[in-house]
């Protein structure tokens, strides 16, 4: 492909969801809104795939403050894929939510809901494509603003409480991120860089003052780590994930926290070049371990299904951080694969949970019982998602967890490995206990036994297929992408 087309794609990608959002404002019919939603997401996915193809053939592309390399591509593909799945799921979900009274049916509420979802996606596209570290921060704060409104969208005061906690905690966190960015930029300006571009700072990174980069990196990890849900800055996460409308929960957990991880990874590469790989690895290792340990008791004692999945995201973000901390090409490859695997699986889990919650009218796992008897397909998908999340072979998460583990053993991080394994085993038992009860228990008499809606099932099956495929084999082109992306991080 010729150069101009690839560069056009770079600025066209963030515009697609923006235009989709604007189109939403022209109509108020639920069917037309869903159609625009599907079309917008399909366009985004198609363009992302074209760009992926081009980058695989010709290497990184840059245009102004935007840049795409193999590392960004991993996250972009996850984002586009999950946006597509969310759109498919939303068609049937919305119909049901309006019927149940969970979403207000007034046209202007539906309209602005769809518009906000696409603006949220647009801000995430910019975080992934941003080369300029300032733009990265602005887009990251943009994701907070758009998604905070969505978290409180039900208008219930629990939703507003969660939204407030979310916007305050992540905004404080991300202020630290900006401070860290300023410090790194100060070091870079001293080191001879004229701009804030990541690629430009990377070119002078070995000459940067290690002292200031070190402090900057810690600020950034705390800042973007808040957004990524790393413990102990994860306080907003279970509330926001449990109170948001289900499609938004899937986007928050599947994509948003991964975008924040990409921000951390960008700074990790700078810090590794300026003060050696050991320092950033050590920081990520500590935060990763703390996240895995902190999440465990909350997963075991949880009654609320969506909160359970929220705490589970804290654990898995911790595993990604561990993979990056163990480092080396295996650990980094495992961490990136885990980003994709967890994103796909967690979105599937939220979808399946949302459908079950709508059927039982409760998020309480002691009330959701015997799902298999009333909704066999949905129950099977929920069970598959839970098995994969727990790390059962042959599902995809098993593979990436194994890679992270192998990197840890290779680096002789015995204490970290021991803690990690113990927690994973405990969570395995806890999660299967919860899931088994929900799927196979005895259903209460008054459960709705209606037919399962096709569009949520189709969205879930799409994700389940990818989840199973990535567990069995990793396609060569995808493997190449992950290898090149890991190479960017490892250097």
């Amino acid at each position, binding site marked *: 492909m010729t150069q101009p087309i690839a560069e056009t794609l770079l600025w066209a990608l963030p515009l697609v969801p923006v235009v989709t959002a604007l189109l939403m404002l022209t109509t108020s019919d639920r069917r037309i809104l869903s159609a625009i939603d599907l079309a917008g997401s399909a366009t985004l996915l198609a363009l992302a795939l074209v760009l992926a193809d081009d980058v695989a053939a010709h290497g990184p592309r840059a245009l102004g403050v935007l840049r795409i390399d193999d590392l960004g591509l991993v996250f972009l593909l996850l984002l586009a894929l999950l946006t597509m799945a969310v759109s498919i799921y939303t068609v049937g979900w919305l119909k049901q939510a309006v019927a149940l009274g969970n979403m207000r049916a007034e046209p202007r509420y539906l309209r602005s809901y769809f518009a906000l979802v696409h603006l949220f996606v647009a801000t995430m596209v910019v975080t992934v494509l941003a080369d300029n570290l300032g733009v990265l921060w602005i887009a990251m704060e943009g994701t907070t603003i758009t998604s905070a*409104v969505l978290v409180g969208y039900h208008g219930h005061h629990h939703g507003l409480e969660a939204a407030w906690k979310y916007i305050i905690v992540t905004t404080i966190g991300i202020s630290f991120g900006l401070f860290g960015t300023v410090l790194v930029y100060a070091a870079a*300006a001293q080191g001879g860089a004229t701009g804030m571009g990541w690629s430009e700072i990377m070119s002078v990174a070995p000459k940067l003052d290690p*002292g200031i980069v070190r402090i900057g990196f810690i600020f950034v990890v705390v800042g973007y780590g808040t957004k990524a849900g790393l413990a102990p800055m994860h306080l907003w996460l279970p509330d926001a994930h449990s109170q948001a409308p289900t499609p938004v929960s899937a986007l928050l957990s599947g994509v948003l926290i991964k975008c924040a991880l990409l921000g951390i990874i960008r700074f990790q590469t700078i810090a590794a070049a300026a003060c050696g790989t050991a320092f950033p690895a050590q920081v990520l290792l500590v935060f990763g371990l703390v996240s895995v340990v902190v999440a465990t008791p909350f997963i075991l004692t949880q009654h609320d299904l969506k909160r359970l999945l929220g705490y589970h995201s804290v654990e898995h973000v911790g595993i990604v951080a561990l993979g990056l901390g163990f480092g080396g090409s295996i650990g980094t490859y495992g961490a990136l694969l885990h980003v994709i695997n967890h994103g796909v699986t967690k979105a599937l889990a939220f979808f399946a949970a949302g459908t079950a919650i709508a059927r039982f009218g409760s998020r309480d796992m002691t009330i959701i019982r015997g799902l298999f008897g009333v909704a066999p397909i949905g129950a099977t998908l929920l069970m598959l998602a839970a098995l994969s999340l727990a790390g059962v072979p042959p599902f995809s998460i098993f593979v990436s967890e194994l890679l992270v583990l192998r990197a840890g053993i290779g680096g002789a991080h015995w204490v970290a490995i021991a803690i990690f394994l113990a927690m994973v085993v405990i969570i395995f038992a806890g999660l299967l206990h919860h899931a088994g009860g929900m799927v196979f228990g005895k259903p209460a008499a008054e459960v709705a036994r209606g037919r399962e809606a096709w569009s949520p099932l189709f969205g879930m099956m799409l994700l389940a297929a990818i989840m199973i495929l990535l567990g069995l084999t990793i396609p060569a082109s995808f493997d190449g992408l992950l290898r090149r992306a890991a190479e960017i991080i490892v250097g």
Partner: protein
Amino acid sequence: MSPEVVQTIIDDLGALLLFTMILILAAGQIYRAIYAVATQSFLIAVAGAVLATATGNPDLWVIAGVTLTVKTMVLPFVLHRVVQRLNVRREVEPVIPVGATLAIAVVVVVMSFQLSATLGSVHQAITGNALPVGISLTLLGVLVMATGQTALTQMVGLFASENGIFFTAMAVTQGMPLIIEIGVILDVILAALVMAIMVLRVRSTVDADIADLDELRG
């Protein structure tokens, strides 16, 4: 202006900024906290103007102007309106006594200076004592957010925290690129508006301060 004069002015402004921060921390009434944070933003704008004259960088003039209009006028005005709409004149009841908060603040400031002192070579890139002052303001803003019980004190703390970052960013030799600074300020305005709407929404539906809601646990 010679570099020494600029450095002296920036250091003096830094001292004043820390003073306004203490006023915010010790403010008994929300109005006082709002006036203090507006004053603080005004000092940031002055610092921007001083650095613009010293470096001859026109971008810093724009940043100073935007800070002046947005952070010293528009945002305090929004906060003021929200307070009027909420009709809360009650005292801000701190979680920790004011004395203890101020003691923590002193520790934070001393530690920030200690930390910056260990970074010798950085002083070439950042003017004067802007770095320790910036770190102090950022951390103390977070302290305000953590100890303040009402939604409005949390917002004031947030703006104070952002002020600290802006002060440091300005003192970095060339300043951040203009477009980035503008984008950051835009984000702050949007976040403030969304927060204000949420505060009013909760007040009208359940008649409570949004920061007092604590039913989500575990």
